[in-house]
């Protein structure tokens, strides 16, 4: 068992329909990108869920942490004026 390896972890992104975004689906283990793509296909698109797959080594990802989330996203919280509903439109104006 000393030499056992589960191989490296890869993150998988699936584009379900042509034109859509690639959305994170999960991860797979693989020794290289080719194996990662094939494993991702077998694990995540057995029912035609995909039209395209991206894989990237998990070690390449950085993620923001839950403990800092409040402070991290705070700047967006009090800016209601970034939304169209903030503005008063004159009575009768159309298509605005």
């Amino acid at each position, binding site marked *: 068992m000393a030499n056992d390896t589960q191989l490296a972890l890869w993150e998988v992104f699936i*584009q379900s329909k*042509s*034109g*859509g*975004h690639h959305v994170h689906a999960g991860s797979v283990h693989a020794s290289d990108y080719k194996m990662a793509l094939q494993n991702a296909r077998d694990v995540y698109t057995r029912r035609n869920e995909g039209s*395209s797959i991206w894989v990237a080594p998990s070690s390449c990802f950085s993620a923001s942490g839950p403990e800092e989330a409040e402070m991290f996203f705070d700047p967006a919280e009090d*800016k209601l*004026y*970034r*939304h*169209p509903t*903030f*503005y*008063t*439109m*004159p*009575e*009768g*104006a*159309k*298509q*605005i």
Partner: protein
Amino acid sequence: MDATAVQAVFQDKIEQDLKIEPKDPMPDRYRAHLIRQISQHAHSEVIGMQPEGNWITRAPSLRAKQILLAKIQDEGGHGLYLYSTAETLGISREEMIEQLQTGKAKYSNIFNYPALTWADIGAIGWLVDGAAIVNQVALQRTSYGPYARAMFRICKEESFHQRQGYEIMANMMKGTTEQREMAQDAMNRWWWPALMMFGPHDKDSAHSGDAFKWRIKRKTNDELRQKFIDKTVQQAEVIGLTIPDPDLKWNETKQGYDHGEINWEEFKRVINGNGPCNKQRMEHHIRYHEEGAWVREAAAAYHEKFPTD
């Protein structure tokens, strides 16, 4: 894959109305067309920050200042989405910036006009962003996947830009005589350049043929311009502004407005570098690019020192 095979695979996808993705086969001319269009779109967002930035410190209230800052911040963000989109086609950010600064790549002509009064900030949001939105909504259906997705995001975010501009105009029209005159003056100066944003008439449009064949473009310059005029006239009337076009007339048959002659001589003059602010816009961009070099150098030096951070 040779050029003929590429063409066949590509054209088949286009006919089926499927999106083209970065790794799909595509003709060189399609790639070049997109790089030109998307990079110029990006440059327009970035240069477009200048006429409005001019008013941040002079906004008439804290509310107005916060809104203007948020809008300009969005424009910068939209430039970044678009630069990234162009990068998927194999051009680097450095090359694009160089093309802008050497005049090889253009940006929307409209940003070569100055924002003279606070009413101009209203007119820019309402008319310039209004025209841009008409154009960008149509581009949500463009054939290049990353570009179409960027357009969805941008349109969603821009929905407040036009409303904040219209709100400024509406408020000024409820104000003093001077404020109403100021609003009308801004309308008079921005209306025609806004119509020019859609580009030359269909019969004179140089790049249109390929753009339609490749479904980069779905609607013609004149169709989009018509759409913009038809929705804007009513909005002007509601707040008491006059469209500065004596020939503007409702056409019952086409269920749209006929408009007067656009001054294409002025359009050509401005696009060829002789507008009121061309020189200033480029000098400003180059100056801040160069003055910001130390930030990029410091970031690179930090990375070299702490490569795993």
